[in-house]
């Protein structure tokens, strides 16, 4: 039974080599040398022809058993080695995950347009539409139709930018021109009331201009948001409720507001709205000038004279309007110390928000 002995020896040798294989590559080498075309076990199988016929059954079974056994051993060993190798690769591939990632940074939105958008969204949520107008406007829309008296100081060359009128007309105002850089987006409400019929619920954000020297608290150009509501049965209580809602949305639910009677030519009654100081909570501190309040916006019920300019019947409709300066609110919300920073385009400033 020399052959069976040989098979036995082969078995021991092969299983030992499988066990000894250091890696999947070495194991594959073993497999080729044993089971490959020129493998030792393959050779045994080929040698079956020389085995005596009466022994063939037994030897054949032994060889086949051995092959199954080898294949099983190979599989077990392969899995173990592969697992070990994966383990080794994973541990060798460990990263310092604190190294910075790689992506082009997403750009930032300017504070003013971000805040404008936020405010517009608040009002869109309660049914307002956005309207816009031109930045160069006639004195009629910027002042007259908003009930500003002809001699009002705000119309003067000191306060308002006038533009050379190329139409050939020379308007009476200041002897030169009645074309201005709009000082308020309120003119949009006049256009809207001329063009649409109530109900009107609009918001008009936009750039406005006033002749102020640029300093930490003034800019000759800034952003205003004007709101206008004209509908049946609008009350002063509606004005209060609307603006209180807006304030809670923008400044937070813990802030309170108050209304102080004021004067504007295009609203009657008029008021200014203050929001409680976010720093001292209303007790009074340096940032609110010890009053506990910060002035946020001007508002009021639309003056009947304004309806007169646009042909809306004040006996049938009533409404309110409000106007707020976005830069001012930005300063209050984000503690920007100098308004001029908003126009410099300093990347270090812009990337903060």
């Amino acid at each position, binding site marked *: 039974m020399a052959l069976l002995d040989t098979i036995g020896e082969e078995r021991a040798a092969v299983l030992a080599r499988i066990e000894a294989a250091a890696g999947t590559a070495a194991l594959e080498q073993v497999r080729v040398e044993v089971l490959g075309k020129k493998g030792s076990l393959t050779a045994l199988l080929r040698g079956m022809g020389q085995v005596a016929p009466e022994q063939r059954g037994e030897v054949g079974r032994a060889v086949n058993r051995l092959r199954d056994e080898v294949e099983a051993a190979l599989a077990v060993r392969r899995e173990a080695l592969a697992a070990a190798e994966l383990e080794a690769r994973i541990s060798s591939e460990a990263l310092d995950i604190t*190294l910075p990632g*790689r992506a*082009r940074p*997403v*750009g*930032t939105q*300017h504070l003013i*347009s971000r805040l404008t958008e936020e405010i517009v969204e608040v009002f*869109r949520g*309660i*049914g*307002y*539409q*956005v309207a816009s107008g*031109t*930045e*160069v406007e006639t004195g009629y829309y910027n002042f007259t139709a908003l009930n500003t008296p*002809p*001699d009002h100081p705000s119309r*003067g*060359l*000191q306060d308002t*930018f*006038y*533009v*050379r009128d190329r*139409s050939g007309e020379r308007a009476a105002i200041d002897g*030169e*021109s009645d074309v201005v*850089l709009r000082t308020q987006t309120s003119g949009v409400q006049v256009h809207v009331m001329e063009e649409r019929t109530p*109900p009107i*619920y609009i918001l008009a954000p936009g*750039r406005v201009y006033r002749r102020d*020297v640029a300093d930490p608290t003034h800019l*000759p*150009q800034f952003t205003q948001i004007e709101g206008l*509501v004209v509908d*049946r*049965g*609008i*009350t*002063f*209580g*509606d004005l209060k409720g609307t603006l*209180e*809602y807006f304030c809670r949305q923008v400044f937070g639910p813990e802030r309170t507001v*108050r209304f*102080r*009677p*004021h*004067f504007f030519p295009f609203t*009657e*009654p008029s008021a200014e709205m203050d929001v409680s100081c976010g720093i001292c909570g209303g007790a009074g501190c340096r940032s609110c000038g010890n009053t506990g309040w910060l002035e946020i916006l001007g508002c009021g019920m639309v003056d*009947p004279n304004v309806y007169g300019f646009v042909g809306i019947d004040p006996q049938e409709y009533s409404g309110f309007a409000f106007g707020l300066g976005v830069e001012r609110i930005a300063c209050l919300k984000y503690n920007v110390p100098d308004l001029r920073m*908003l*126009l410099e*385009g*300093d990347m*270090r400033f*812009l990337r903060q928000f």
Partner: protein
Amino acid sequence: MRVSLKWLKTMVDVPCDLREFTQKLDLTGTAVEGVEVTGTALEGIVVGQVLTRERHPDADRLWVTTVDVGAHNLGEGGAPEPVQIVCGAQNFEAGDKVPVALVGATLPDGSRIKKAKMRGVESRGMNCSARELGLGEDHAGLLILHPSAPVGIPIAEHLGLSDAVIDLEITPNRPDCMSMLGIAREVGAIYAVPWSLGREVPAALVGEPVEELVRVSIDDAQRCARYTARVIRGVKIGPSPQWLAERVIAAGARSINNIVDVTNYIMFEMGQPLHAFDLATLAKDGEGRAHIVVRAAKPGERFTTLDGVERVLDEDITCIVDGNAAGAGAAGADAGGAGAAGAAGAAGAAGAGATIGLAGVMGGLASEVTEDTVDILLESATFSSAHTSRTSRKLKLFSEASARYERGVDGASCDTASARAAALMVEVAGGVLCEGVVDVWPAPAVPELLSFRVGRFCDFIGAEVPIADIVGILTRLGCRMACHDQADSGRDSVLPVQPPTFRPDLTREIDLYEEVLRVWGMERVASTLPGGRGRIGEQTTEQRRQATLGRTLRASSLNETMTYAFSSPAADAAVAMPFEEHQQAVELINPMNGEQSVMRRSILPGLLRSVAYNQSRGVANVHLYEQGTVFFASEGRKLPRERQMLAAVLAGAWAEGGWNNPAEPLGFFDGKGVVENLLRELNIAKGQFKALDASAAPWLQPGRAAQVLAGSQQLGWLGEVHPRVCAAFEVQPPVVAFELDVKALLASAAQARPYRELPQFPALSLDLAVVVDEDVSAQRVLQAIRSAGGALLDEVRLFDVYRDEGRLGAGKKSLAFSLAYRAPDRTLTLEEVEKLHQKVIGKVASATGAEVRA
């Protein structure tokens, strides 16, 4: 408007503390801008009584005193005990009451009182002179107080120095609040308490009739509704009594002399500006009368005002003229003299007269009250607010008087104020008040009767306000509630209301609503939201697309900024954009400065300034965009055309070089990539780039400039900014920039891309490298490939551009493309694809002169 609380309290009862009071003023429409508390500087200085006075043992000029300061100094048993103070003054005796600065007090000059030893004797405080308290120049000795002064009370309280001056912002619609009387009335209305003028002025001795001394003519009643003149003779000019000086100073003026102080005092008290002329300086007519004429100034007329400045006048300015000087006269309303009516006609023809005052603004130097003045002509008039306002602004001359006239002065109170002022002048300066008044008042104003619909008011504000409250508030504000018959019909009541003459702002029913609302309390109105039905927060297509722009640019790493909408001809010239005839700059008539004298026609200059700003601060990587308006004027058009533009600049690299991320300098294609992102996000299918030559885009570097189009629609430009332009803006090149027309972008945008079926069958990719002349654009080659490849050519990607003079020859470049072939309905065979590919190669070669590389 400065309001002394001490003064106010003599007129009306303020029923709460200062903080509560100022809040109430705020909430009823009189904004408090600040409160200045005076007298607090003298804290720790009290009334003391000198008990003993003995020579200092070691110094001839010093006294050792013991001073009773009441409970401010307590002995060991807790009982008050006198303090020992060493003192150098000589003017006092034991028993005198003097101001004592206790240890710890700070004097107005800032020095602090400490316990000290003076030549070996302990001193615990300081007896003070008037000067040491900042109360005057007298430092000859201690300030000896009245024997009745209560020991121990603060000196500020004893001397009445404690006051709070409230600075009020008076809105332009409230002329009546420009006086103490107006504020007292307002306080009375707010708290429903009575008020009065407070101080009584004794009646004056009456002399000769004033008509014998003065006559008055008003040329134009539009400029002056009423003019009254009184004369006070034999006054003695001198300092004002302390109470008068104190009040005038508290109101914000200087104390000048008794006569001028009275004019200011009555103005602050009653809101009526007054002017005192020295009657002796005015020319007299044959009957010995002065003649006051109110008329328009002559153009070019010169006049020296009280402040010593010579002013050049024009016709819009109203003058007070000495009608007798240099032959005078005036037409129009006229009174005074014997037989007023007759005199008017007689004075008709006339010369100019000599100007003695600018109506409503300031008096003249020549007729000013001086130390030698004996007879006073007192003017109390109602000048037009519009003329006064324009005059002030034109001459840049603002006075307390002009501030009041600008808002409007009540014609009805003109004479009352004058009478009170005249009597007060006699009280403080002596003399005799001439009998009567010369009063020219052509047309007294009568306020219109208004109707107040109670129900409508309640509906309008959204609160039920009781009729009694409405009537009470309006009455306290000075309105006459003509009759209250209807007050019983509740909500249906219509109240007839006659506003007072001092409230010219109350001309309509709505004005009364505001009055009632503000006094009743805005805080009492419940907050509600409008219940309107036709309310939709709709967004237009354009508004929705608009939002895509910023979102895409930010996703492409750009940061939004904002720059000035102003430009200057110099900046425009530096950029050298060739604008057309109808694209002129909008010029400002009154710019802030030369650098902001026109409106911008491009956002680029502003962005370049920001690049320079960053670079000069060591920030090299700049990625900015702005969406904003540009302006174009053209002859014959009143309003310019405005266009919304979207512009961007890129400089430096996307980021500082990182450990795994080298900093690649930004160039043309980085800008182009951003624009391509935009085109994609807006679904602009036919976006294309065409080279721009130097003459079309002189602000861009030639060869790196492109026009951006959607089909034939121009969208804008893209390129690297010309180094010359960069230099003009002190910017370090290269800077990539683009500027696109927002309206054109949005108009070219498609609503949505249609769905395309995902490929079911695999693609076969083959490469194609061609060598072409430098001037053959990639786009041309690409077009040739696409047209030859037809429907089966699914994708073409340019993956390499390569130049090598040695291997390719001069002026040649190699372009390598990867072509993916795919059929929608089957798997293509290699033979099929190769055949097609060969066809593509052939077509490209013939169309572009390309040589195919192996």
